[in-house]
């Protein structure tokens, strides 16, 4: 169990860093086609921002912002985006994941539609990877005892 150990420097710095980390993860996602990056990498960085919150503060702070239920919903949402784009291409007449057929609903030609299709599925991948990484970390940190972690009231602050 990670109990709270209050340190003003770590808390302040992590509060500054987390939004930058999240923005950087979206940057990595968006530039995945032209530079190293993409969905999986962006998702890991996004999850790292939550892990920083857990390490610097407490599990409850992180869970206030990202509960178990939202975790499950995001996990499924990313897969739905991925498979949904694939299904959409099926319904529009092509094969599975044939993004060229997306040009029928997007106002671009088939070649750029492939570009947007790939960006779409990378977004789905990022959301799922973020949810799963946070979930794995929470499982490891609470040693599986999620319910006990919520009831734990001993936020003993070993102050200096």
């Amino acid at each position, binding site marked *: 169990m990670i109990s709270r150990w209050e340190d003003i420097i770590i808390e302040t710095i992590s509060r500054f860093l987390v939004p930058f980390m999240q923005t950087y993860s979206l940057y990595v996602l968006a530039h995945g086609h*032209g*530079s190293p990056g*993409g969905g*999986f990498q962006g998702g890991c960085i996004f999850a790292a921002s939550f892990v920083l919150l857990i390490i610097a503060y407490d599990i409850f702070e992180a869970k206030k912002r990202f509960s178990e239920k939202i975790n499950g919903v995001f996990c499924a949402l990313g897969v739905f985006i991925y498979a949904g784009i694939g299904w959409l291409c099926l319904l529009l007449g092509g094969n599975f994941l044939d993004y060229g057929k997306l040009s029928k609903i997007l106002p671009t*030609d088939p*070649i*750029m539609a492939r*570009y947007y299709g790939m960006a779409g599925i990378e977004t789905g991948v990022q959301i799922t*990877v973020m949810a*799963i990484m946070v979930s*794995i970390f929470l*499982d*490891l940190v609470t*040693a*599986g005892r999620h319910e006990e972690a919520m009831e734990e009231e001993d936020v003993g602050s070993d102050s200096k």
Partner: protein
Amino acid sequence: MWEVILSKYNYWIYAFMLMIGFYAMMAKNNLLKKLIGMNIFQWALIFYFISIGAKKGATVPIIPGVHGHHGAEHLVVHAADYVNPLPHVLMLTAIVVGVATTGIALALLIMIYRRYGTLEEDEIIEELKK
């Protein structure tokens, strides 16, 4: 004989890493050390694949200065100038597979630790025999 070792030194390194990982998986008693051995095994494999794509004097496989489909048709591209991107892409998937395996194995280790109180393999087998 030395040419064989020195010219293909990267393959020797990967084989060495594979064997280290394999040894750890087989011979170590602690389950977490076996897991780390498995990780080393998978990473040796990933390095092996990535080194396939490298070429002498080659650069990043991105055609600079063109956007969309306007410019790329008129460009003559020599494949020898660009690193082969396919092994990199395959290994992205393999890294994700490795992460997922590690995640599952760590969750299993937590279950095992909560149930038996130890992560040593022989003690767990003793415990199970009772």
